């Protein structure tokens, strides 16, 4: 009796310590090592964004000051003309080179760049996930509706989608973000809208494929209602496509946000990596750290999301299984 009971107990004990989903993740990581690394980076990014105030060391908007080395008690007009700050004993700690106190240096107005890079992850993450979620949910509804019910709705919505897709994406985005105040919420909404056509197309065509399968035919012939076919057969079967569209889109939206911030029409009042690159670009030869770290942050985050998206697609897309 005891001989049989012990191993079972042991197993249960081990199960008690495991992190939920860890086994699934390990299988995924073993199959797609690049995807596994990317997934870890994405999780790190999410943690960084959530715990930004603790990771950042300083407030991103805090202006660092230092003693003015050129301080003159009673400067002459000529001296003041050459250096307007000469009369004040304390000045802004601008363009500090990267070092122990400021890991990534400071910018023109004395902000700590490390703190700003860390806080910038919040905007990128919100924009990437938010816009992709909007695009995918709208695309799912429109795509399934027009693929499943066909008819007039399909024809009209597809022409509208054609028109939206023929519109140059960045132009549409530049228009949309200027319609209202360029806040984070409006930027996310605008980017979600420009993603809708592509997602709708993908989902519509996979709906058409699923709809012509034998099992849908079978369900129909035993008298299943449209609603039942839709929820029990169509949507579960295109779900992997939805997930792929969602994960592939994120990186593109992050680049889009950085681009419009770089062009000066991005969301106001928040730290944006794109804006940081723009601010440092003029003096890149003198103070490269203003631009380099923000740009690297964009690149690493987008690479991670792209690799993760690719791996998700490879695992979920049956056509690519085994490649």
């Amino acid at each position: 009796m005891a001989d049989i009971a012990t191993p079972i107990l042991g197993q249960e004990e081990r199960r008690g310590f495991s992190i939920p989903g860890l086994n699934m993740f390990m299988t995924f990581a073993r199959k797609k090592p690049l995807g596994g690394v990317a997934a870890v980076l994405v999780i790190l990014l999410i943690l960084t964004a959530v715990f930004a105030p603790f990771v950042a060391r300083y407030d991103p908007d805090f202006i660092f000051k230092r003693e003015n080395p050129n301080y003159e008690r009673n400067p002459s007009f000529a001296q003041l003309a050459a250096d307007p700050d000469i009369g004040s004993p304390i000045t802004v700690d601008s363009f500090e080179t990267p070092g122990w106190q400021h890991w990534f240096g400071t910018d023109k107005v004395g902000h700590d760049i490390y703190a700003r890079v860390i806080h910038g992850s919040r905007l990128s993450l919100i924009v990437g996930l938010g816009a992709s979620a909007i695009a995918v949910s709208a695309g799912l509804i429109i795509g399934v509706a027009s693929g499943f019910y066909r008819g007039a709705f399909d024809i009209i919505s597809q022409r509208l989608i054609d028109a939206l897709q023929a519109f140059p994406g960045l132009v549409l985005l530049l228009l949309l973000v200027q319609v209202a105040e360029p806040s984070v919420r409006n930027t996310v909404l605008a980017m979600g809208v420009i993603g809708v056509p592509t997602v709708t197309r993908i989902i519509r065509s996979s709906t058409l494929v699923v709809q012509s399968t034998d099992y849908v035919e079978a369900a129909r012939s035993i008298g299943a209602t449209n609603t039942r076919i839709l929820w029990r057969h169509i949507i579960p079967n295109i779900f992997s496509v939805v997930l792929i569209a969602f994960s592939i889109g994120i990186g593109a939206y992050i680049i889009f946000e950085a681009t419009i911030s770089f062009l000066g029409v991005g969301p106001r009042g928040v730290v944006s990596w794109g804006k940081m690159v723009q601010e440092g670009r003029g003096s890149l030869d003198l103070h490269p750290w203003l631009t380099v770290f923000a740009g690297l942050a964009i690149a690493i985050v987008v690479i991670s999301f792209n690799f993760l998206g690719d791996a998700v697609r490879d695992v979920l897309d049956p056509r690519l299984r085994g490649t």
Partner: protein
Amino acid sequence: MGTYILRRLILNFFVLWLVATMVFLSIRVLPGNYASQQFAGANLGGVSSEAIAQAEKALGLDKPVPEQYVNFMGDLLTLDLGESFRTRNSTWSELGKALPYSMELGLFIVLVGFSVAIPVGVVSAVKQDQLPDYILRGLAISALAAPVFWTASIAVIFVLEWDLIQINVTGQPHAWEDPWGAIQWYMIPGFVGGFASTATVMRLLRSELLEVLRQDYVRTARAKGLTERTVIMRHAMRNAFLPVLTVMGLTLATLISSQIVLEQMFNIPGVGRMLFRSISLRDYPLFQGLVIVTTFVIVTTNLAVDVLYGFLDPRVRLS
């Protein structure tokens, strides 16, 4: 075939009308118009609302929107795109000035992009899941991930600091006027844009090749004792290349208007920069005209590519 093309042409016409309407409405939804935007800078002096109203009247902005729409559509039917609010030149002549620059940059980008993407895609497919494949794919995805404005900024500094090439350009030369000057001018944006565009093409070619390499006729070709080189170049590439050709056409069509960032950064007076400025200035006719023409180019290229596809690949039946 004939009916197919006719049907597509009618559809394209409809899509163009939709785009024209969207363009017309969307630019008017933006707060402010050209007149108020012009005086916005001079607001400190206290511009009277009469001055703005007068400017609006001169530009025809005082008319009700439906009337403006009817006029716009009427003009559009006679291919009259109106004249730019700012320069008072016709939109067509503005486009005529900007388009060559965008085309030159676009061609440069496509040439660089494809001459990198094609060999990389082939190697990556042939050496699937081996070290070269991983390295090349990693590089391609990095090129896709790094924002164009960032790589361009850094490329400029490298070129300036290390004197990699002598950039000695005066004015804004066209390729047919001063070929060497134009090449120098487009060098950095062309290479940066080209590398950024490689990833899409390279991945497409790789996946197409992988699919083709599993086909029976490739096995037959190998069994016949053909060299691997002949198998890939003669049998696999010919079939894998078609989708790539499609993408090539479309890339060129979209490149005309999509290089806003590079044109803005490198002061290239192309269509992208003109579009960007026309939005911020609320230059309605110029913006409308530019978007409608670029959309026309994209839609027509799409159709041309699809028709060509039917000729090149007998398996594809147009219906």
